[in-house]
């Protein structure tokens, strides 16, 4: 008998709220975290991004600890984890693991020629020491699927009986490093991003931290993790497969493991970065699986692309959607701009959600899909 695995606690730190409830309230009211920023230290011309206010962050952090020697990203991650560790009452012993997902971690340390803090194992150690985890941190750095891949890895480790509980934190920051990089890829949108729309021109970057507790204990379960897959396109290191092969196979693998058919999925929280190729690729993959009529959204219109955090952040919101039986609008969407039909959510509505699918794709040709089932 394979162990059942649940997500029992969730939290997120984003520009539109420092807990799940305030994020959901803002999403319900179509309030986006994306704003025009004039920060020459980050980028030479004004740019749209979803950035956490430093004063708010420091105020919230001061309520948790009087310590001050933490980086912005570390503060975000600690704030995301702290309430759920406390609330769960899980003992941080050798049966409790800690997974940290990020793409660039404290890469901003390099601006001051500080190499040591930029090591991702150092970042993980700092967070782990703050909470006094007893096990060695597991860091996942797998481009833009990192956050959702962590859920998949956690589920597998619990099923293999390595651990009973796994806390995951996923976070990434808007930095000069990623802004210049995405810009050099000609992948940045001049306006707030418009996933799946005809006039989409690229991503808007964002920052966030999200945290969940993955557990074998059904008590307080919010959702069950039913199946997952993380399959590479084997096509190109920066462009997605034109046929959506890796995403198609990842979803197929997740559905097969969950033993459910594609027509049972009630909602898809998709990746939707708003680059021309990514969104097109997703539409193709979904059509190949007969998922084109399932209501779907991209939350990038609210948060921008939060890189390694995005998969977990969007899972946290997706779980809340399922619990509240609410489909949230895919903000920024107007006229469909992909070649295959997909059912992008155009207005908030109530709908019974039993199964939902979370997907993500990223550089290196990676893709991840996870199927969740509401616990009755």
């Amino acid at each position, binding site marked *: 008998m394979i162990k059942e695995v649940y997500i029992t606690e969730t939290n997120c730190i984003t520009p539109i709220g420092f807990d799940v409830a305030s994020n959901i309230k803002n999403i319900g009211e179509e309030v986006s975290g994306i704003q025009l920023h004039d920060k020459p230290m980050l980028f030479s011309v004004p740019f749209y991004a979803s950035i956490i206010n430093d004063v708010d962050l420091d105020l919230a952090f001061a309520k948790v600890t009087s310590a001050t020697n933490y980086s912005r990203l570390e503060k975000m991650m600690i704030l995301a984890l702290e309430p759920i560790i406390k609330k769960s009452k899980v003992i941080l012993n050798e049966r409790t693991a800690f997974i940290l997902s990020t793409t660039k971690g404290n890469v901003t340390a390099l601006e001051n020629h500080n190499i040591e803090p930029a090591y991702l194992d150092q970042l993980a150690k700092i967070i782990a020491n703050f909470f006094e985890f007893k096990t060695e941190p597991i860091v996942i750095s797998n481009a833009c699927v990192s956050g959702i891949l962590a859920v998949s890895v956690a589920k597998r480790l619990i099923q293999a009986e390595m651990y009973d509980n796994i806390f995951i934190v996923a976070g990434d920051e808007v930095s000069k490093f990623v802004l210049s990089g995405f810009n*050099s*890829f*000609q992948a940045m949108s001049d306006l707030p991003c418009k996933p799946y729309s005809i006039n989409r021109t690229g991503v808007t970057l964002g920052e966030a931290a999200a945290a969940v507790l993955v557990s074998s204990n059904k008590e307080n379960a919010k959702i069950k993790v039913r199946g997952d897959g993380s399959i590479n396109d084997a096509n*190109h*290191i*920066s*462009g997605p497969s034109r046929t959506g092969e890796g995403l198609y196979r990842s979803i197929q693998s997740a559905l097969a493991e969950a033993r459910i058919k594609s027509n049972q999925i009630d909602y898809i929280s998709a990746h939707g970065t708003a680059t021309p190729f990514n969104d097109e690729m997703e539409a193709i993959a979904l059509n190949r699986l007969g998922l084109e009529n399932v209501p779907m959204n991209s939350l990038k219109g609210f948060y921008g692309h939060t890189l390694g955090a995005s998969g977990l952040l969007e899972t946290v919101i997706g779980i809340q959607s399922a619990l509240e039986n609410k489909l949230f609008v895919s903000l920024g969407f107007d006229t469909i701009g992909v070649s295959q039909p997909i059912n992008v959510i155009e207005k908030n509505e109530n709908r019974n959600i039993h199964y939902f699918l979370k997907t993500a794709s990223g550089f290196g040709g990676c893709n991840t899909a996870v199927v969740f089932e509401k616990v009755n």
Partner: protein
Amino acid sequence: MEALKQELKSKIIEVLNLEDIAIADINDDDALFGDGLGLDSIDALELIVMLDKDYGIKLVDPKEGKTIFKSIETMAGYIAENRVK
């Protein structure tokens, strides 16, 4: 113009790390992308940076790259006309 073409060939080999290709291997009207030199989308982005860095040309619409980077011939023509350094 001839000097510019030679310069471009040598730069492309260097910037795009075309290890096994010599200047003499590239003809002025060879297709740079697709079947020709086999450059890909990242190479195209790198050529956009090169235009900016070495010739002071900023492409407003990256899609323009498609016609400009067709061959050494078209690139040299465009650069000669638009360069500011």
